[in-house]
């Protein structure tokens, strides 16, 4: 029998096209769960009794307290699990005034400051004198060289 084109026939892949559409609503039902490195812990006992695999470590963030727990398991049953507790401390931002108070210059009294400045002045003068002496020495050497070259 010859194979004529039938306009009323369904396309061969008609049912295959319908299958993916039925699965879409099920995927939309599940809300996206944010991936986090910290497991929320309602209490410290929850973190202590939390199941952790051998050689693994899990971080916890306490829900009602400023603490972070870390539970680490050894590589075998013989190793005891290590439980660490860290307290979170709020750090205040440093203002400009706080910065000047923290410097050593602000802590010194005016008399002490004067003494320090005088000492620094003396050191600078001594340095200037030594530089002058070096310059004079180099001048003398260069003049001696010129004299010997002229003699030759």
């Amino acid at each position, binding site marked *: 029998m010859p194979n004529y084109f039938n306009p009323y026939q369904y396309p061969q892949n008609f049912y295959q096209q319908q299958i993916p559409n039925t699965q879409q609503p099920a995927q939309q*039902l*599940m*809300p996206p*769960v944010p*991936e*986090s490195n910290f*497991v*929320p812990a*309602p209490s410290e006992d929850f973190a202590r*009794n*939390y*199941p*952790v*695999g*051998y050689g*693994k470590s*899990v971080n916890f963030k306490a*829900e009602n307290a400023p603490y972070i727990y870390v539970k680490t398991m050894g590589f075998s049953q013989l190793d005891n699990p290590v439980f660490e507790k860290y307290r979170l401390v709020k750090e205040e931002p440093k203002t400009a005034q706080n910065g000047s108070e923290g410097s050593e210059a602000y802590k010194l009294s005016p008399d002490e400051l004067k003494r320090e400045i005088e000492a620094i002045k003396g050191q600078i003068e001594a340095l200037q004198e030594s530089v002058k002496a070096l310059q004079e020495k180099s001048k003398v050497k260069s003049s001696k060289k010129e004299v010997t070259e002229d003699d030759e």
Partner: protein
Amino acid sequence: MMNSIFQIYQQLRQNPMQMLARRFNIPSNVNINDPNSIIQHLINTGQVTQQQVNQMMTMRNNPMIQQLMNRR
């Protein structure tokens, strides 16, 4: 066929935890009534990963997930 299904149903109704223990090969020394010890056994035997456990524990506290579970 119907008898075997009925038997399985009866067992599941009488002792669901024992059925689950048999399904996941949980030995008798593991306390079936303690979820943490079951999860610990599943991790140790490699039936679940640490990441899967962490995700499950995080999802359990998610209010949206809790709402979905209560709806069913």
